[in-house]
């Protein structure tokens, strides 16, 4: 099969860039440990309360060490259950100081949902029977909308919350 000289140059350059590119994402993944969330931890979607993190009293934001938080959420159509405040009112906004490390843990009791803290790297599929987890440092201040970004039914667009990062 005949390859034109210019095509050889073109493909060498292309394949070379591709190899470099793959080396970079491989390095970031396996040496730096930046993988997308993949915990392979299962849970019974009809009995999520059996899991310590998803007991009603453990939902919402908890400070576990100085500047370290765990944020537990149970998703259902069309709501994120983030626990209740002292007056028993459902929490819709959580507040953390800038620079906090937050571990987001979420599961669903019904259909597939999304969980995206818009404007951050926290972007996960939430599937029945699985626990989704992602830990990140909230480096920027501001109000970030939590939005369900996988279609979950006719009220899909009404499923949201807010993360407020303050100075």
């Amino acid at each position, binding site marked *: *099969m*005949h*390859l*034109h000289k*210019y*095509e050889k140059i*073109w*493909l060498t350059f*292309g*394949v070379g860039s*591709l190899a470099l*590119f*793959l080396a970079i*994402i*491989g390095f*970031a*993944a*396996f040496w730096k440990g930046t*993988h*997308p*969330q*993949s915990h*392979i931890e*299962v*849970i*019974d*979607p*009809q009995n999520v309360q059996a899991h310590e993190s998803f007991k009603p009293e453990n939902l919402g934001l908890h400070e576990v060490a100085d500047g370290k938080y765990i944020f537990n959420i149970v998703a259902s159509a069309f709501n994120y259950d983030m626990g209740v405040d002292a007056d028993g009112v459902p929490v*819709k*906004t959580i507040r953390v100081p800038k620079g906090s490390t937050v571990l987001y843990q979420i599961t669903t009791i*019904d*259909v*597939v949902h*999304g969980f*995206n803290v*818009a*404007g951050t*790297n926290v*972007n*996960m*599929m939430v*599937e*029945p*029977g*699985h*626990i989704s987890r992602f830990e990140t440092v909230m480096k920027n201040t501001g*109000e*970030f*909308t939590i*939005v369900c*970004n*996988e*279609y*979950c*039914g*006719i009220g*899909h*667009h*009404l499923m*949201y919350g807010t993360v407020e990062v303050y100075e």
Partner: protein
Amino acid sequence: MSTNELIIPKKDSKLYMSFMYVTYISLLVGGLMGLLQTLVRSGKYTLPFNIDYYTILTVHGVILGLVLTTFFIIGFQFSLMGKTVGMTDKQRKVAWLAFWVMVVGTVMAAITILVGEASVLYTFYAPLRAHPAFYFGLAFVIVGSWIAAFVNFRQLYVWKKAHKGEKSPLLAFMVIINMLMWFIASLGVASAVIIQFIPWSLGYAETINVLLSRTLFWYFGHPLVYFWLLPAYMAWYAIIPKIIGGKLFSDSLARLAFILLLLFSIPVGFHHQLTEPGIDPTWKFIQVVLTFMVIIPSLMTAFSIFATFEETGRRKGYQSLFGWFKKLPWKDVRFLAPFIGMVAFIPGGAGGIVNASYQMNALIHNTIWVTGHFHLTAATTVILTFFGITYWLVPHLTGRRLTPKLNKLGIIQTYIWTIGMTIMSTSMHIQGLLGGPRRSNFSEYAGGEQVATWISYQVSQAVGGTILFIGIILMVYIFIQLTFFAPRGVEEFPIAQESDNAQPAPKFLENWYLWIGITIALILFAYTIPVFDILKHSPPGSIPFDWPIGR
């Protein structure tokens, strides 16, 4: 390419045109839904008669993504096979069966969606449960397309037996590659529909394995987009050169590119599932690497196309560095529309690299960036090429001519499309980078600055969407003209010839056992262990949910 092109008999034209009718009815219906979506999302319009947003979203995705594409492609490919290797009476009968099975499936699914019993979007993720008729409809469409695939296989087989030792015509070879890919890939979604969804939707199975169903869907979902793209590549490689008055750049390289696309189309579905919790990250990474192998045939294609353009221009005597480029037939819509499609594929392909990039995916996954991406690739690159094919294929089949006036309307259509899509797709990309979700009805969420910015981009999407709908009306008008009213005459079926000093294609390129064998080996490599893992670590299954979709 063989020089003995065949004449398409009337009986065959009728078959090919039937697929085109469904295509353009789908364009009108699906396009209208798209317009309504962008209007609703602008926040300034609500749907009449209590129609639910997600019903029209499902119609839009199913009708344009699954119906329009599949009908156009199968009809176009039948015409390519008929033109290059011929069609017997028996094959035509079976092809009609394929058509009607697909139509029955489409109508079943469409009615189920329209009455609000299947607002599950075109990905129909479990455990949302649609009415069983929706899944049966999908199964019929797939089975119909398989019948078409086997007719194509048979067509080439019969031709080969009559032409011992000759290489198959390039376009026939390409059609076979595409249908092989389609068949192997759709086995995944068909098994999900038939083994998982149908018994579960009927109540015979209590629960469904959600992750398995998603994995089977995406095993099919990525090759699905190549199934749309390859017919566009067929036109770029083997038809456009003839339209611009040139020759095929390299028959062998074109075949090799198609083979590579077959090999690396299927073992890659995990790059749609990167942010899912239940799949081992190492296997996600392996499939990401396999995904990126597609860059090689894409670069080969880009080179071939521009080399053809330059060679043709130089042969016509344009000596300056870019003189050949200026002299391309810009006023011929058969060239212009696909050319703009090619240009759109540069940002489209680059965006695709972002999407499949293991880590970067988290930034854009399920944001409207993704919607912007496939409106560049599918709804610009692919569809403009399909329009470009329509301008000569339809009059060729109906015995009419693409008149200068219709050609001019086509050029206007192409520019309208380009402007509308530039506005819509660009604002989708930006809104997605800012975190705006896809597949969502208008919502102000918790309010605030972030959401206000999203909505401002949704307003520009409505502007783009409106312009695009004008383009759709114009295209449907042109189609009707070419079908029923354009003056009688002869329109060429342009197929490029090999250049005179072309070298013979190596025999191994047509060793089907070899290529199918490697395809299956790659699939087994990429999927065996992770699928066993999924089965081994599966959580309790999911019961069906009807109420979230309003059933």
